[in-house]
């Protein structure tokens, strides 16, 4: 069940209290501690109420922890979730993958995440990131927040938490926001299909087939029997090459049709920096255009590709 | 651009198989077939030999390669056998093969049963289902060198009479005076007038003496587990008990990484292990 949201003035002690409270009914709570590699938050599990004091939530809590829920089906789990993470929880419930009775969501307002990966690329791995909600500092010097806001946050449509309350500060959307990502998207949008094919081949040539895109995705819960890595299926070969990488992503896009909640974890996880969300975003847009559906907003909604409308689906006349 | 020819590489590349041909396919059970195979190159046949318990990589190029115990007598090397249970992609392709079809083989791989150490001792073989395959090779070796060993006992079981392999061998084994052979099935049925009972149960009923004996067991993991318990109850110590393991393998030469039990690789340090060795390894079966 999605529990009430933490109030807007969420302090770390409130968060600890929420986690302690959840642990009264749960075996463990998924959240973050501050001590991750590179000095940013890292995912953690809280089993005992005494551990809850270590919990943090800040703009480096980029991970979507809902990815762990399908593997924890047998346990009663609490999960600290940003609004976009909560959409994934909702979608897992909608697909009957997890039992809502065993999951309690500790909703946290999202201050808008920072793009840790980009900051580190630019300032070196482990560069110190400080974010007081207004000013963003890297190694003690203020930087322009907009440049280090992931596009998914800049364009966030989840300012209203799926549980119903207003989610507070999302970064000001300016032209500078997520500049690199926007530039890439504009460039992509201007391409012809043939140019895009070339673009993707170039991108996919860097894929090393580590499956981080799949494993980081909360909705890719077929995991161990996934057809893109199977002895049985011949959808892809077993080698590392651009063609198979392309097929892998076509499989992912297809299988996430109407199910992707847009959390961007696939792209964040990709060590080769392949802009996977270009495809996911486009598909989410088309799905909404065709079926008026946004995945994970309503845990009771029927996935659009598992249903049909006999009378109104006629896009092409016979 | 200069290149280095791969000259100087050892004469044999361990990952490169030798072309071979299926001579005959013998259906054993609804899902097990024995393939009689021979290398295409007479020089390869000439150089080929194996010991009981050793394994080989049999491939249908295009479908892939898989690991099997060599199930035939080590004394015969011009034509030898793999008994293959249909389970995945490669074994399904193998089951499609007929006489004359080409295959490729890397063999022998792995280590063998220490039959030299066993000379003068009684040998108890305990097999279930497809687990008879490696023990069959061992049994033939023991029979070929019968005078070197003491009493020879074989208990071989399967779920139903149809699931017992090596029908023509069994006829022979049953009539041999120098082999105490019991075939058993899990549950009684109308077409079976022999012994009925699970292999470990039958083993305890037959109660072979641990005195100056070695027991060798191979079969489904659950059978092995209970057979090991039964052997312990009969008084067999862990260094008297041997088994041969199966794991997913790819390279067969201890480098691709997947078949290890702790620091030991089933493909090279095994597949034959004494229970004493196994008990010293991490439990990751």
């Amino acid at each position, binding site marked *: 069940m999605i529990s009430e949201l933490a109030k807007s003035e969420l302090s770390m002690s409130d968060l600890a209290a929420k986690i302690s409270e959840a642990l009264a009914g749960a075996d463990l709570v998924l959240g973050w501690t501050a001590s991750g590699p590179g000095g940013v938050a890292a995912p953690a599990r809280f089993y005992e109420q005494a551990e809850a004091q270590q919990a943090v939530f800040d703009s480096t809590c980029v991970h979507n922890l809902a990815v762990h829920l399908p593997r924890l089906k047998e346990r009663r789990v609490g999960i600290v979730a940003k609004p976009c993470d909560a959409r994934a929880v909702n979608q897992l419930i909608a697909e009957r993958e997890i039992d809502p009775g065993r999951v309690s969501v500790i909703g946290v307002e999202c201050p808008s995440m920072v793009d840790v990966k980009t900051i580190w690329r630019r300032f070196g791995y482990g560069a110190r990131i400080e974010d007081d909600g207004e000013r963003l500092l890297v190694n003690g010097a203020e930087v322009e927040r907009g440049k280090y806001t992931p596009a998914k946050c800049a364009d966030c449509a989840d300012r209203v938490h799926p549980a119903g309350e207003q989610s507070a500060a999302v970064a000001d959307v300016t032209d500078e926001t997520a500049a690199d990502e926007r530039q890439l998207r504009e460039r992509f949008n201007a391409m012809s299909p043939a140019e895009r094919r070339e673009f993707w081949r170039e991108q996919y040539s860097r894929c090393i087939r580590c499956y981080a895109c799949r494993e980081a995705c909360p909705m890719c819960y077929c995991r161990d029997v996934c057809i893109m890595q199977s002895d049985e299926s011949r959808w892809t070969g077993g080698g590392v090459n651009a063609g198979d990488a392309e097929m892998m992503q076509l499989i992912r896009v297809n299988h996430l049709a109407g199910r992707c909640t847009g959390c961007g974890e696939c792209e964040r996880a990709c060590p080769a920096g392949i802009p996977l969300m270009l495809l996911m975003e486009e*598909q989410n847009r*088309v799905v909404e255009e065709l079926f008026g559906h946004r995945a994970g907003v309503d845990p009771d909604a029927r996935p659009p590709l598992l249903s049909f409308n006999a009378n109104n689906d006629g896009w092409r006349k016979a | 651009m200069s290149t280095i020819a791969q000259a100087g590489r050892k004469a044999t590349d361990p990952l490169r198989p030798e072309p071979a041909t299926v001579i005959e396919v013998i259906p054993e059970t609804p899902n097990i077939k024995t393939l009689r195979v021979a290398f295409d190159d007479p020089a390869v046949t000439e150089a080929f030999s194996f010991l009981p318990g050793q394994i080989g990589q049999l491939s249908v190029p295009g479908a892939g390669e898989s690991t099997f115990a060599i199930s035939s007598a080590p004394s015969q090397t011009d034509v030898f056998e793999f008994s293959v249970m249909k389970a995945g992609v490669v074994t399904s392709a193998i089951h499609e093969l007929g006489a004359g079809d080409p295959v490729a083989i890397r063999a022998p791989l792995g280590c063998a049963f220490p039959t030299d150490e066993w000379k003068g001792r009684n040998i108890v073989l305990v097999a279930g289902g497809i687990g008879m395959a490696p023990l069959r090779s061992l049994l033939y070796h023991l029979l070929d060198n019968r005078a070197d060993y003491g009493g020879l006992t074989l208990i071989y079981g399967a779920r139903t009479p149809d699931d017992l392999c090596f029908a023509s061998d069994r006829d022979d084994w049953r009539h041999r005076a120098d082999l105490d052979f019991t075939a058993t099935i899990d549950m009684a049925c109308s077409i079976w007038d022999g012994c009925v009972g699970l292999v470990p149960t039958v083993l305890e009923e037959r109660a072979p003496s641990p005195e100056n004996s070695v027991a060798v067991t191979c079969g489904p993991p659950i059978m092995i587990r209970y057979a090991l318990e039964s052997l312990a109850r009969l008084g067999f110590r862990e260094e008297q008990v041997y088994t041969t393991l199966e794991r997913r393998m790819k390279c067969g030469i201890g480098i691709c990484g997947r078949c290890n039990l702790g620091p030991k690789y089933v493909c090279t340090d095994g597949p034959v292990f004494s229970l004493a060795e196994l008990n010293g390894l991490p439990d990751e079966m």
Partner: protein
Amino acid sequence: MAELKLIGFLCNWCSYAGADMAGTARLKQPGELRIIRMPCTGRVDPLLVLKAFQEGADGVLVSGCHPGDCHYNEGNYYARRRLELLARMLPAFGIEPERFEYTWVSASEGARWAQVVDDFTTRIRMLGIGDEPTVAKQPDDQRTGEERAVNE
């Protein structure tokens, strides 16, 4: 000039029979389309279409029973959603959307089938040979620097 490769995924119960009818009626139709018989358009995984393009198809046509007439009652209703989504996603994948079509042809519409094939083939002929198959199977040894865009 190399021959066009057109792939048709046809429902067994209607379009395949319709194509058969067009054939027995000796209706004139172009020969580039290679037909794959499917049990239902509901079985046409959009990935089959994409795989066909990846392997070098110049055009892919899916044809099934008219909505409302599915042999399995609702297979083509599901297919319609998937195929429309696929059609709109093709440009993002880098495939010209004109190279794909889905349509409905019943078992009795032999003449209509001939028309569909003719229209589709003509359209693809205008577009010409499509993208080379993505050659997947190149061992990494041949990985070279010049195929990549790099910062100058």
